[in-house]
């Protein structure tokens, strides 16, 4: 089995698009790596892969090794990433695939990637509850993942879709590690007044309603976005070092602590 050397598998899910699944995946990977873990990131958002951009590795490609595809190493190799984005000729190329092809690709991602020993494999998913999600749930029938981190934004329009995702988890018997509320509040750089652009508190209410743990709220920090977008220009400093200075680092250290605790407890 390709997953035998992987200690813990965590999925990042959300019924809604653009709530920050990929940002949460990235930050979870960075904060886990900062604690000395060996982390793998698998991006199964096939029609809109964001991981290569998030880790500043758009120019890298995946190579075929003796044991399978070698994932792309980030920085000093503490983080390894696999995404369909690495397999495209041009970053603007669109992947127009129906379900069966997506299913086949995901199966290949699950069987053909030579991750090597990993402490954590984090899987970033596309929005919805369709082909990709059914496929990944099928792939994990034998190797049960440790659970899913569900991401939402606070407004009711988003939580309405995320509720569907929680029901999906129930149906496929996926353990929910907890809910992260992203984009919770924005601090104005001029007057330091916090505005709840997308309202606030929706994630916590939903967590209570569904009886799952609320892992924390993450505010909007334009500096994080800026850091991701300009990471290549910042010279020698690795993404991990830059992230340690970010205002979001302490927030995610707490979240990843809880994730580790819950995974270890199993």
């Amino acid at each position, binding site marked *: 089995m390709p997953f035998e050397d992987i200690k813990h598998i965590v999925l990042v899910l959300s019924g*809604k698009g653009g709530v920050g699944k990929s940002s949460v995946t990235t930050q979870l990977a960075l904060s886990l790596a900062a604690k000395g873990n060996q982390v793998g990131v698998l991006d199964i958002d096939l029609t809109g892969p964001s991981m290569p951009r998030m880790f500043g590795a758009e120019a890298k490609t995946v190579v075929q090794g003796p044991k399978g595809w070698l994932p792309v190493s980030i920085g000093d190799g503490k983080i390894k990433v696999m995404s369909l984005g690495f397999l495209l000729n041009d970053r603007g190329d669109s992947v127009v695939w129906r379900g069966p092809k997506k299913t086949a690709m995901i199966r290949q991602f699950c069987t053909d990637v030579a991750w090597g020993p990993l402490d954590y494999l984090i899987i970033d998913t596309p929005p919805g509850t369709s082909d990709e999600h059914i496929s990944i749930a099928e792939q994990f029938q034998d190797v049960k993942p440790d659970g899913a981190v569900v991401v939402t934004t606070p407004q009711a329009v988003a939580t309405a879709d995320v509720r569907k995702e929680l029901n999906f988890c129930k149906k496929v018997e996926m353990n929910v590690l907890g809910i992260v509320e992203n984009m919770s509040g924005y601090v104005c750089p001029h007057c330091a007044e916090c505005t709840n652009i997308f309202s606030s508190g929706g994630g916590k209410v939903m967590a209570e309603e569904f009886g799952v743990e609320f892992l924390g709220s993450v505010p909007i920090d334009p500096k994080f976005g800026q850091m991701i977008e300009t990471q290549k220009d910042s010279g020698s400093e690795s993404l991990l070092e830059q992230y340690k200075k970010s205002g979001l680092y302490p927030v995610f250290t707490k979240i990843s602590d809880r994730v580790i605790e819950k995974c270890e407890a199993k």
Partner: protein
Amino acid sequence: MPSIEETSDLIAPPPEHCPGPEGEQAGKADACAGCPNQAICASAPKGPDPDIPLITARLSNIKHKILILSGKGGVGKSTFTSMLAWGFALNEETQVGVMDVDICGPSIPKMMGVEDEAIHVSASGMSPVYVADNLCTMSIQYMLPSKDDAVIWRGPKKNGMIKRFLKDVEWGELDYLLVDTPPGTSDEHLSVNSLLKESGIDGAVIITTPQEVALLDVRKEINFCKKAGIKVLGLVENMAGFVCPSCEGSSEVFMATTGGGEALAKEMGVEFLGRVPLDPRIGVACDYGESFFDAYPDSPSIKSLKKVVEKVKMQVGEEGDLEEES
């Protein structure tokens, strides 16, 4: 590309190199050997989808059909769709329909404040849910027994549903049919395009947010439109800038480090329809299903939106009628 059929009668998920249950090769290709569906596929009728003429007839009284697309999720497709709908519907003479083909994450009913409605089925078809006298909507949300139910469907089932929305819904006479889509470039997008090809799509409005991570996916969507032969009416940059309600200072929540939507529009050779700034009140209005045009007419976002609505009208060849108000 084979046309889409109801394939929900397949008895197992299709194999890796499935030629498509409707293609010429269905049931005969190498990959079909050993597939449990082989017999079903081999005996299925071939050729163009027999339902397409029915759809064309059903939609013949609709003047303009506009798709709202974005490769990226959460950039405001549904918000923009509902605003465009309210914007068109400001003129009482204009009949507007909104079709929500986001099967796994429908948002239109909530944003329009009709989440708890159910559809009525009669001999002539399903009637859409009316939000206002001249504004009707259709979404899978109306068919769910409980509003939090997950729709865990693979592609073919979603396609079947979309076909029902087009074939069986009594849209009546409409000036505009707006189609709100899920993120990505997959089943839903291919189906809507192939089913509507015959009846004619005016084009697609593409939504983005300013940061490169979003532009990256939106670039893919524009390429998809080119491949599929869908005319791009223009690109809208949503969530562009934020005006703090307490100090009026403006700042960028999502940084446009690579020039934002405008630069992308130029690069891809499509029309740039405008920027819509963030306004927390729009989010609140969406949560309560109100029309922001009525609730906050003075918001800077609404002013930019009105301009975008006018531009979309011009793109599809209609006279603007909001001009005198602004």
